[in-house]
């Protein structure tokens, strides 16, 4: 006992003295941005090793490229992408035959169908024909007639998507059906990119894929990442700030892709059951660990509106949401209370649950 405690005391003093030098492992910031998936993708990583940092960045962007090629319905570079784009091949073979696809596409489809079912069809990746009708994908936007909408709606039905996990195939039962991954591709790509960053040993990073945010770990100083939520009616302002770590924050709003005809705004957020815009909300924000889920969930929440959207969110595990209604009222789930700070800007009325 005598020798032990003396040794321990000595070790303690030596350890304490050397401890003060450990602070010098400095983390450096490496950041890059690329235009992909029709939007600006920014990735920032922190590493004490320059090579590791730069490699991690390259790998992350490679993931975005990869997923982009699988899910892009309207590739700019027709020749190259058409061959590798799973979604194009699935759509071309609608009503004809099942198509073999990559594991990633399979995952995306399965996750999407899961939430389609859970939300009673408020989210539906078979919305392709409707999106085309409105002209959103090809930038030829116009307001279609009710008749046209009604006819096209018959092609929208997630239940007619047959997935065979054993053979790795996806089959659209009716000819004319088409899948649109616009509501899930960015989220999935972000999640894959984050995985790759983790595998590269990165402990602090921030990904922003066109507003689709993933906060990996904490900031280098140990504090949580601060993610601002944009003010739906002021592109230079924020309505709230979320403090998060290892979490994804994704926002959908009627200000992202829209066109105006005769003074009415028509956004790209369409209710699969009516084929028309959902108008109860201006903006939804989903906060959850999986970036894929966060991306997907914005759609049914937006369509369901703030009341049914709130109940739907509460039925899910580990998901938080913020709803901004068209009348500028803001509601949010309880589980976000400790991480959410409202800026007080923009004349929004924050509704307290209690």
């Amino acid at each position, binding site marked *: 006992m005598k020798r032990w405690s003396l040794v321990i005391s000595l070790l303690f003093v030596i350890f304490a003295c050397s401890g003060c030098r450990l602070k010098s492992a400095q983390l450096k910031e490496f950041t890059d941005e690329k235009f992909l998936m029709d939007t600006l993708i*920014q990735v920032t990583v922190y590493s004490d090793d320059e090579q590791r940092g730069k490699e991690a960045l390259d790998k992350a962007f490679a993931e975005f490229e990869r997923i982009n090629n699988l899910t892009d319905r309207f590739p700019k570079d027709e020749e190259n992408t058409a061959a590798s784009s799973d979604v194009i091949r699935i759509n071309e073979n609608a009503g004809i035959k099942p198509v073999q696809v990559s594991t990633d596409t399979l995952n995306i489809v399965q996750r999407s169908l899961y939430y389609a079912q859970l939300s009673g069809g408020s989210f539906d990746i078979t919305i392709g024909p409707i999106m085309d009708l409105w002209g959103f994908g090809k930038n030829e936007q116009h307001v279609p007639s009710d008749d046209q909408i009604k006819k096209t709606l018959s092609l929208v039905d997630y239940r007619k998507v047959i997935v065979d996990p054993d053979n790795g195939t996806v089959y659209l039962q009716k000819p004319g059906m088409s899948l649109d991954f616009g509501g899930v591709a960015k989220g999935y790509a972000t999640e894959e990119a984050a995985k790759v960053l983790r595998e590269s040993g990165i402990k602090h990073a*921030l990904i*922003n894929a066109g*507003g*689709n*945010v993933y*906060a990996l770990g904490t*900031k280098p100083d140990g504090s949580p*990442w*601060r*993610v*601002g*939520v*944009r003010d739906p009616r002021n*592109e230079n302002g*924020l309505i709230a*700030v*979320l403090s998060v770590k290892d979490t994804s*924050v*994704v*926002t959908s*709003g009627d200000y*992202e892709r829209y066109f105006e005809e005769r003074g009415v705004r028509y956004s790209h957020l369409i209710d699969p059951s009516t084929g028309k815009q959902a108008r109860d909300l201006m903006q939804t*924000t989903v906060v959850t660990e999986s970036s894929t889920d966060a991306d997907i969930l914005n759609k049914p929440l937006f369509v369901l509106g703030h009341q049914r959207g709130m109940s739907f969110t509460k039925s899910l595990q580990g998901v938080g949401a913020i709803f901004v209604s068209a009348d500028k009222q803001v509601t949010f789930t309880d589980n976000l209370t400790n991480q959410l*700070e409202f*800026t007080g800007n923009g004349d929004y009325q924050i509704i307290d649950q209690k």
Partner: protein
Amino acid sequence: MPASSTNIIVKNDCLVRSMKNPNYYIIAGLLSLVLISFGVSHLVQRQMTEGDLRLEIYTDGQLYRKINLSEASAEEIRVPTKDGHYNVVEIEKGRARVKKSDCPDQICVKTGWISQPGHIAVCVPNKFNIVVKGKSNKVDTISY
């Protein structure tokens, strides 16, 4: 005597003995001290992080000036002390520092830039110090 009852007697005796031993009270006291210190620290932090990000300059214990750091533009402030000494504070958006001082040890200048609520730069010879208080509104990225 059956083994079990001997055990009970031994256990009771141990408990009684430790209750009487003041050493354990000291240890209990120290542990509660640690818990209380967490409470105090939390209270102090809460009080410090209210309001916008601002810098408070104190001379001789009195508040000399309050400056909003979130909307600040670059400026320098020369703060005189009673016995003819001075400190120069440099302000930038979101942070501040003691740029120059006529004190012998220059600890205040060596502290460098401070930007987090609660951080201080002190010049004891000149009885001068600056404190950052309030909430920092800066965000790292925006979800839109």
